Every structure is written in structure tokens, then in C-alpha cells.
């Protein structure tokens, strides 16, 4: 029987959840016996090449490209998992949600102490190559259906590991107190 296929992506996250996945350390060698990887930032597969069993989503949606990638994951993965606070509820980037986006851009590119002299023309990034920034940062389940949620900032490596093994083997997920943290 062929191995289950896993894909991963980081949307508006910090990659900390991917790093926490790598914190399973030597179990990485077990993991690659257990599953195959498709599209993921840790390899060079840039577009889905086949239907995947599990998609791990880090980060919420802060721009049009995040939405596109997330919908693409929904289409190509049988099970989608929101990994970490940003995917689940927008996380720290969602702190901008009650501030007009223009204020955020002005602060970064016009009013900052390093750009007062460096950017006298008052240029703001705005180009066809740049995706459109959304009005707010959205959690993933407000954009597509999400099947499972792993809390934490980031979720502990043991939680990600236990969840993946449970999904792949069909065994019951073990959630001892030590592995479920919300910071």
C-alpha cells in the first residue's frame, strides 16, 4: 500500500510551526518512513503533483495570495489541519485588525525614523507583482473548511507528532496535559 501523502504551507505565519515540526528531531527519520511529502517549503515541489491525504496549514490569511494558496490546499488535500494560533485565530498578525491598513503602511514606510530621510518621495509598495493586502487577517476556517486544529504558539513538537501519527495510523490521538499548551 502506498504511504499517506502530506503537504505543508506557511501563510501569514512566522514559520515557527514548521520549526516545531522539525523539533520532532530524530523522529523525522521515522516520519519519512511513515509518509511521503508533496508541496512544502522544505522541498522544491512548488505545485501539487497529486491528491494529498493531509495538509498542514501554518498562518492565517493576510493577503490575496494566502487565500489562493489555502483554497488550493483545500482542493488538493483530503484533511486540512490548522496548525498554531495564527491559522486558528489569526494570531499575532491579527493585532492589526482594529487598525486601518493605511496606518500600518504609513508607519512602516513613511513615518519610521529610518524612512523620513530615506524615502522623501513618500513611496509605498504598490506593484502588480505584490499580492493585495486584505482588510483584516482572517483565520483559515473563515476561508475554507478546516478539519482539525492544533493549538499553541507554536504547537509543541510532541503534539504535532502525536496528531500526525494518529491521523496516519487511525489510532486514537493521545493528548496528555504536557503537550497541549496555548502559548
Amino acid at each position: 500500500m502506498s504511504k499517506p501523502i502530506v503537504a505543508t504551507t506557511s501563510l501569514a505565519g512566522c514559520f515557527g510551526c514548521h520549526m516545531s515540526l522539525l523539533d520532532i528531531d530524530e523522529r523525522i527519520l521515522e516520519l519519512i518512513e511513515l509518509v511521503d511529502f508533496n508541496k512544502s517549503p522544505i522541498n522544491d515541489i512548488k505545485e501539487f503533483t497529486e491528491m494529498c491525504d493531509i495538509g498542514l496549514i501554518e498562518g492565517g490569511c493576510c493577503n490575496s495570495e494566502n487565500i489562493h494558496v489555502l483554497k488550493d490546499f483545500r482542493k488538493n488535500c483530503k484533511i486540512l489541519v490548522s496548525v498554531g494560533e495564527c491559522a486558528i485565530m489569526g494570531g499575532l498578525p491579527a493585532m492589526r485588525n482594529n487598525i486601518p491598513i493605511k496606518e500600518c503602511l504609513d508607519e512602516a514606510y513613511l513615518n519610521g525614523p529610518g524612512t523620513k530621510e530615506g524615502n522623501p518621495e513618500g513611496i509605498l509598495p504598490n506593484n502588480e507583482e505584490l499580492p493585495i493586502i486584505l482588510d483584516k487577517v482572517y483565520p483559515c476556517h473563515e476561508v475554507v473548511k478546516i478539519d482539525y486544529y492544533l493549538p499553541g504558539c507554536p504547537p509543541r513538537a510532541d503534539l504535532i507528532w502525536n496528531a500526525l501519527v494518529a491521523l496516519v495510523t487511525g489510532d486514537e490521538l493521545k493528548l496528555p496535559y504536557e503537550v497541549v499548551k496555548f502559548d
Partner: protein
Amino acid sequence: MKQKITIEPVTRVEGHGKVTIHIDEEGNIAQSRLHIVEFRGFERFVQGRPYWEAPVLVQRLCGICPVSHHLAAAKALDVIVGAGTGDGLTPTGEKMRRLMHYGQIFQSHALHFFHLVSPDLLFGVDGDPAIRNIIGVAKKFPDLAVQGVMMRKFGQEIIKATAGKKIHGTGAIPGGINKHLTQAEKDSFLNGPDPLNVDKMISWSIDAVNFLKKYHKDNTEFIDGFANFPSSHLSLVRKDGALDLYHGVLRAIDKDGKKILHDVDYQDYLSYINEEVRDWSYMKFPFLTEYGKKDGWYRVGPLARMNTIDFIPTPLAQKEFEEFRAYTHGKPNGMSMHMHWARLIELLHSAEMMKELLNDPDLMSGELVIKGEKKSEGVGLIEAPRGTLFHHYGINDNDQLTMANLIVSTTNNNEPMNIAVNMVAKQYMTGQKKITEGMMNAVEVAIRAYDPCLSCATHAIGQMPLEVVIVDSRNNILDRKRR
């Protein structure tokens, strides 16, 4: 026929970026750009938060090197709480932070070399993309993969022991640190069963340096010739010119090695550095004000540090540093791929520093925090794995943040990365009828040498799918190729 090539997302880097390359009718590279496509707005949304939250909030820019942001923010807040300007902490406070920092440099450099870059070296730039990744390495070279995994683990365990958590810890607080190292932790790091002890980490670091040196010997033309260009270099150095990744004065040299920033106090960084904005990227372009936007750009990171410093204060890394410097006869080294060599010398230095610090009794007892007269503004700099990181905060009478300015390491390397992309695109794609996957990966190899943390840079993180779009002069898409 005009062509536009898009590499998106750039993979095996940390962050969201894409590359566009425009090729004109004659097959020449008309324009190439590395775009950073995410924007998050940290500078604005931290305003109003209590200042002591900054080290735990702002590190969430980046899960790859959160410790750098954690410590740079804490250093800026040291100034605000009156605990000196980087060297006023208690011995315990400073040494615990240093151990945390060298643990993170160690894990980050190991991650970059083994997990992200070694596939290009082991399978070739144009190797099969299906196996050209850490999983391919683990299957074909399991011993090497295990080394990489265990070295990263050791660094992460050091971070956990000093910061409380492996990712997004809470150890550093304004004016010091919130915990000691325990005897059990110390014993385990110094004398734990193989491979998880510091002596094994030192010996594996030497192996890694030797691996790269052998690869260099066997592939001299590639390593020396790939994206090789002169530039200025900037970093912190210790007051006596030594490599010091935690604290120092700002030094910059030009392409000939002449000092153009003379070991200045970084509290005054705004007198020397400004940032340009270009409309096609969310990442700003810093420059030395005195030399202007066109000529004032510089490189940061391991290569820059090997160029700016006078010596390394640990014996094994110093020996490697001397060999590194001798290769260019003491002149500044502008070869992008030598960044890997420089990074591994720092990996070795970090291992040596961890051992030195672990043997220091100050870690296990002594005052943790110091405070003095409060100030309304503070600047904290640190040499992050990827280069000089600037944090600058202002507060009001209610202890709320009123201003945050962040110049992250990768932002400092914005112009150099764009130059590297342009050089490699010209070298590999000019006049080519067919753009291959290998050519596109070559562009990514150049970017990857800078170990860009695009997550940090957009104050986000990411990856690049590769897409080639062939357009006519009216921008009509004639053909499209994805990998």
C-alpha cells in the same frame, strides 16, 4: 521574443518571496527582482502595548530565529529601564543571554546548512528536484542527516534551558533574565551521552567545516565564481575587533577593506543609516547615509562578519578564520557561496562559546535583573544568524510603546540579494532558448546563500513555486511553464 520568468515561491528559504526575470527580444536580461510579498505592520500594531511585552511579541515576526528578536528587543528595553546600553547587566543576566544566543546561532546555522543547503551540494544545483531536499539527504546520506538533526536539537535544547521554550521563549526580560541554569541541565549539556554533549557538537562542527572545504576544493570554479561581486560589509564587532555576536560597536568596511564606519555606538544608528522604499517590494533597502542610496548599500551576515572582524576569540574557529582570510590574501571576500564557509566557521565558534559559557559558575547563581533610571527610548542591536538586527523603541509615561523601528538582518541584505539574482540570471539565462528547472534553481541557490529570513523581512516567512511566463511585447502570455 520577450519573456518574463517568475520563481514563486522561493523554496528552502525561510519566508515568502518571489523572483521575476524579464528577458528581452535579444535574449538579454532586461530586469530581475526579488520581491518580498508579505506585509504585517508590526511597527504600528505594537504601539500602545506595555513595553515589557515587546520581547515576546516582536519575536513572533519569525519562528526561525526568534531568539534574535527576543534578545534585540530585550537589549533595547535594557536601555529604557536604565540597565546600561548592552553591557550593564549582571554577569548572570548577560551570560545566560549569551548562552541562549549562541545556542540559537548554532541551531540556525545547522538548520540552514544541513536541512536547506546541503541538498544543492550533494545532489547538484540541477539535481532531481524530487530528491533535492532534506528527505532525499536523509535517505541517501543518513549519517549526515542525523548529524544535522542532532546538532539542531542540541541548540534547541540550550534555548529551552535558557528561554523556557524552544520557540518563542520568555527568558530575557528588560534588565536581565528570569532564570538560572540548573546543575542537571549543565551536566547534561557538558557530559550527556553521545551525541548530545558539547564536545560532540564541537567535533561535528569541525567535520562540517571540513566537508565544505573539501567540496570547495572539488568545485572551486562554482564556489568562487557563483554570484561573486564586491561590496561594503557591516557588522557589530567587539571593541577590540573580535567577533562578538551578542554585543559590540558598529563597523563597516568598503570593498577594499577600508573602514567606512568607525566602530560607532549603535545607539546613534540613525545618524548613519537610512532606508529606501521601492514600490515593488515590501522589504526596504537600507543604506549608509553618507554614501547615498546608490553606493551606500552593504552586506551583513556570516560573510560580512568574517570581513569586518579582526579575529575570533576561540582557538579552533580562529584557526579556520585565518585560513578563510588567507584565501583572499586578507582582502574582503565578495564570493556569495563563501557565505556557507563563513557560516560553518561561526557554527564551530558557537559550539566553542557554548562550552566556555556552560563551564561558567555565574550561570547557576547570582542576581538576575538590574534596573536604573528610566529612559523614554532605547536601541538594541544584535548579530543574528543572518546579520545585524536593529530594534528601536520609544515609550510614554504610561509605559506604553509609542514607536517601534525594526531593521532586520535580511532587509540589510536586500540590495545584495537582488544583485546576486541579477548576476546569476545573466550568467545562466542570457540567450537561452529554453529555461530549465536547473537554471531557475540556480537563481534560488544564490538567494539561499544569504540564508534570507523572509519571515523576518516582512515582519513574514516563506517559499518560492517556480513559474516561467513567456510574454510578448504587449504582455500577452504566450506560454507558461511551472514546476
